[in-house]
């Protein structure tokens, strides 16, 4: 049988598979967290949600936010995430950015729509302003009833993880079968 042709085609098949894999990753990879300069088109912040038999876990990426910038409240059916990320410059003052007092160049980048242009110190030139600053409020309807008093949230390295225990009636419950 055509062993020669099969052997010849093999590396090309591999190459084609490699391209298929690359193409799939480019076209189907999930987007980044959404903290871009443009206003988010989808619900914000983006969340990933998973469930086990007894709890729901909701995760969101909130880079640059401290615990005090986030407000979470829960009812039995709904989780509300609220918060705001300060504009880059107020972060600067928080982290002790020296005022750009040298030189007298004014900002060459037009201010975005976030309206913090008035606080711009002199001599600061922005080359990139991609990190959006915005307030957010997202109401997430949960796929199961939860126990609001047991909700816990952790913020680690800019990743918020909210764990919601399911209400007892929403947990699967084992039915034992008796024999006669």
């Amino acid at each position, binding site marked *: 049988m055509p062993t020669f042709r099969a052997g010849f085609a093999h590396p090309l098949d591999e190459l084609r598979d490699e391209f298929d894999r690359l193409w799939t990753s480019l076209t189907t990879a999930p987007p980044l967290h959404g903290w871009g300069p443009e206003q988010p088109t989808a619900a914000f912040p983006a969340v990933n949600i998973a469930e086990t038999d007894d709890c729901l876990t909701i995760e969101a990426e909130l880079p640059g936010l401290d615990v005090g910038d986030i407000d979470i409240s829960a009812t039995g059916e709904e989780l509300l995430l609220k918060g705001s990320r300060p504009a880059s410059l107020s972060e600067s003052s928080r982290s002790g950015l020296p005022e750009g007092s040298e030189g007298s160049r004014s900002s060459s980048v037009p201010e975005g729509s976030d309206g913090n242009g008035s606080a711009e110190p002199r001599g600061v030139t*922005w080359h990139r302003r991609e*990190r959006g600053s915005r307030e957010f409020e997202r109401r997430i309807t949960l796929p199961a009833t939860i126990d609001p008093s047991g909700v816990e949230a952790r913020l680690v390295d800019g990743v918020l993880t909210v764990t919601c225990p399911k209400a007892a009636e929403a947990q699967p419950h084992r039915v034992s079968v008796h024999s006669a």
Partner: protein
Amino acid sequence: MSSAAQSSAQSSAPQPSESNQAPGGSAPGLTYQPHVDICDCGAEVLIRADVPGARPEGIDVSYEDGVLSVKAVVPARTLPGRSLREEYGVGDYRRSFRLGEGFDAAQIAAEYRHGLLTIRVPRLAAVRPRKIAVHTA
């Protein structure tokens, strides 16, 4: 030297793209370009990058031949149970910037807090903009 004024981002990877050297333990093969703010304050250039999920020990900042490179490995994290909704992806971050000459490589400082990486690249004293006072006779 106002070279940083033309700091053009070298796109190190399309967004997102397959990472061919993702170290073990990181998210499955995705690499994103982090969003950044770059601000020239005269004495230094300040770069802020959103790299949520990265651990401080997984962040690598290097400066060579006028190019500042940022890499952040994000450990894979999976939520317990079955996934109901996936609105964003988790992957490593990689991006580099051409800053040009006139920076003090030895004094570059990076700080990481709450998923936000802040890098300060100071100019060499000799090339800092300087205001010269004019005296009247």
